[in-house]
């Protein structure tokens, strides 16, 4: 078990982390490159930047957008807050980083981390149930729409038991291994799934705006490409 744990916390973790970081950086880079190319091709380069910024910030901090399907909205916002904050600011994680690379940063109080973890678990259950019973979301849902929140749930539940052994009904090592392996798997999946919105979300309002800025002669070029330049309307 210890060998597996060392492998999951060591080579596999670093590989998964590198895969996620490089994958997200690649997506961000491609998006920026493509956005610049799109902008340069546009016939009208007047972008309503203030409007784009406002929409971007509004959705990065969506506090005024919670009324629309409020149970779903509130639980997903809490879920996102926990998923972002706990892995980065849990004292135990920071201690591991300090041991590995010598870097440390302020941690959340353990009680707050625990509360956020429980909120994430409640959020996962709530989101999955709401998705499963919602007449809107259920027919739209794919395998990943259920699998990803459940994987997040496994990661956080096992993390909770690692942090609170008194509540843990299982042996420590298998729970820790589950925690690390599920986190590693999540890292691998982030750039390959809808979780890529982790890096793409700040760009999407701009991306949507840019798409309406057509190249000046796109229509004529499409006509030529399709052999329709002399075709009657």
């Amino acid at each position, binding site marked *: 078990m210890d060998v597996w744990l060392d492998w999951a916390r060591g080579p596999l973790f670093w590989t998964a982390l590198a895969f996620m970081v490089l994958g997200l950086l690649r997506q961000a880079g491609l998006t920026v490159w493509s956005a610049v190319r799109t902008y340069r091709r*546009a016939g009208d380069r007047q972008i309503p930047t203030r409007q784009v910024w406002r929409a971007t910030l509004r959705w990065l901090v969506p506090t005024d957008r919670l009324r629309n399907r409020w149970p779903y909205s509130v639980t997903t916002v809490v879920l996102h807050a926990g998923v972002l904050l706990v892995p980065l600011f849990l004292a135990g994680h920071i201690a591991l980083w300090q041991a590995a690379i010598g870097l440390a940063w302020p941690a959340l109080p353990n009680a707050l981390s625990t509360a956020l973890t429980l909120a994430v678990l409640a959020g996962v259950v709530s989101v999955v149930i709401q998705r499963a019973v919602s007449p809107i979301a259920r027919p739209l849902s794919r395998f990943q*729409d259920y699998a990803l929140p459940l994987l997040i749930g496994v990661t956080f539940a096992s993390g909770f038991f690692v942090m609170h052994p008194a509540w843990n009904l299982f042996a420590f090592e298998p729970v820790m291994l589950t925690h690390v392996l599920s986190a590693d798997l999540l890292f691998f999946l982030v750039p390959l799934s809808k979780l890529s919105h982790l890096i793409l979300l700040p760009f999407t309002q701009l991306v949507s705006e840019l798409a309406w800025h057509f190249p000046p002669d796109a229509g004529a070029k499409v006509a030529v490409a399709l052999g329709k330049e002399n075709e009657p*309307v």
Partner: protein
Amino acid sequence: MATPKRYSYHVEESALAQADRPARFLKAFAAILEHGNYDLALDAYARMSAKCGRCAASCQLYEATGAEEDIPCHRSELLLRVYRRYFTQAGVLKARLFGGFTLTDEYLDEMAEAYYRCTACRRCKATCPLGLDHGLVTHVARWILAEVGIVPRALVVSVREQLAGETGNTSGIPVPALKDTVEFLEEELHDIYDVDIKYPFDVEGAEYVFFPAVSDYLMEADTLMGNAAVMHVTGGSWTIGTGNYDGINYGLFYSDRMMERIARNVVAEAKRLNARKILVGECGHATRSAWFIPTFCGPDAPRVVNCMEYTYDMLAAGKIPLKAEKILERVTYHDPCNIARVGRITEQPREILKAICSDYVEMTPNRTENYCCGGGGGTVSIDEIRAFRTSKLGKRKADQIRETGAQLVVSPCANCKKQLRELCQDNELGEVEVVGLHDLLLRVIDFGS
């Protein structure tokens, strides 16, 4: 001549006879991705669409039908699925290894139906946490479909007359008929308001060339008289060009290729007359498509001004004298999606109405969050779907109008006006009158004695 029905709307017979549509659809899709600017957005949407369904809560069609196919995200997925499968490396590899989705005629038919149930009002964009613009997906999907002949006949016939017909406008109004109509309007202004107002034709060097929806010459006499009255009392330098007098651009609804050609024709007429600005009449889509003029004709193209912007500026400058008596009926305002959704023209009409009406009330929600009239995206021109437009697509708007208790609904858009009138007829709102903004303004302009 009857057209065989395959969709809820009529298409040209030649379109139904076309072979190998999936391959041709993919070829058109590839060309549009290569030469257009849609690939960035489609790629981002295909990667991160979360399928949360929040968009459904803001879609008036889904509110009315509750049908899965009317969820904006579901509709967008129809095209994104094709994009993922055929235009991403992962999709191509996955298909080679495991097979799976293949574009078929039946799938094309599903898209053809879905993308004309949407009015492309873009209301759902404001509620998508990830910023997906489902109206954009509808826009590009319709263009690709049009390249394989799937486009409502009502739209393509209008564009054909505008680009290749003898009259060069969507209503088929020849110049002599236009001049007769205008002469009639001048007589009406004289008889009713005792004022001599002329509609100037082909005045070289005029500041503005006027491009209303050409159908206004047939349907909206009061709006056009109001436009002329404003230009008269403000001393505006304007003209109607006999080379092109149609602001309508149905290319916006189904093909950037057509939109580009129509927009260039508008600019050509303005340049022929050495005009500095294009004055668009009361028409939402004509205004929005004219806003694309810098795209197609460069930053030095004539500036586009909507007539409400002009009127508001003149009113604010005190150049439009008003009678002491205001409009007494209860009045409400419908925001046309094409000018209000992005917040470009929302306050000017309200300020004008507040200045001339004693009982002005708002619909809720309004401005950028307004509900579409139900005839947006060109669907109002498709007469064969009127029952769908006025029952399902327009139900929310009919409810809104009823809730205001208004006797007059003002909408500065030719398409919205047609839809709202049919909506009122079909929803027991027969006592409600739908008018243009300049119709009302005309009633209270003080021409002096």
